[in-house]
């Protein structure tokens, strides 16, 4: 049982390049999330999805796009990377809309934008 898997684990981009981060979960969870983690800023929600084919904006959505074409996958795209997007990105998932449900996190993607 792999849980939440993120690829790639590390990536270096030049300003203006694009890339896609992939999150896959094998727990049949409805809800999926993308967070970024920066020193002193905690976990900030970028976008999330409450089910296949749905997406919604979080706290810091600018510069990112997402897609949830399959229930098990949640993709985070950067169309034109900027140095301010240098961060550690975490994907998470949970089973349902109950607020008390446990979040399962992936191990993160370290992204550097030069």
């Amino acid at each position, binding site marked *: 049982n792999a849980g939440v898997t993120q690829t790639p684990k590390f990536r270096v981009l030049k300003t203006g390049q694009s890339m896609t981060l992939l999150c896959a979960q094998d727990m049949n969870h409805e809800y999926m999330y993308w967070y970024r983690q920066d020193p002193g800023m*905690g*976990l900030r929600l970028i976008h999330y999805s*409450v089910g296949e084919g749905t997406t919604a904006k979080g706290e810091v959505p600018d510069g990112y796009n997402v897609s949830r074409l399959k229930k098990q996958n949640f993709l985070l795209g950067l169309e034109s990377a900027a140095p301010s997007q240098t961060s550690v990105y975490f994907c998470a998932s949970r089973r349902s*809309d109950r*607020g008390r449900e*446990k979040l399962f996190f992936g*191990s993160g993607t370290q992204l550097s934008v030069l």
Partner: protein
Amino acid sequence: QQQVKQSPQSLIVQKGGISIINCAYENTAFDYFPWYQQFPGKGPALLIAIRPDVSEKKEGRFTISFNKSAKQFSLHIMDSQPGDSATYFCAASIPLADKLIFGTGTRLQVFP
């Protein structure tokens, strides 16, 4: 109203000591308060959680104390060990919420 304020940002404790991390909130609709633990290079993982109908919850060396009237809750780590060195996040949510509201995190270092 949707914020959860966490302090301190960093904490250094000697082995065997008590680590205390505090969180405060404004939204009285919050009804679930989890703590997540994150080791370096890993994603956060649920450590312990409490609902507002109890004032304390204990799991091993970890205890959440909850003060509903003050709108504060805290994590106490008794007999802190070097293996407890991690970043701790408090969080809160309302019933049927789409998402958790996270605090900004506390980096705990426990020295032998």
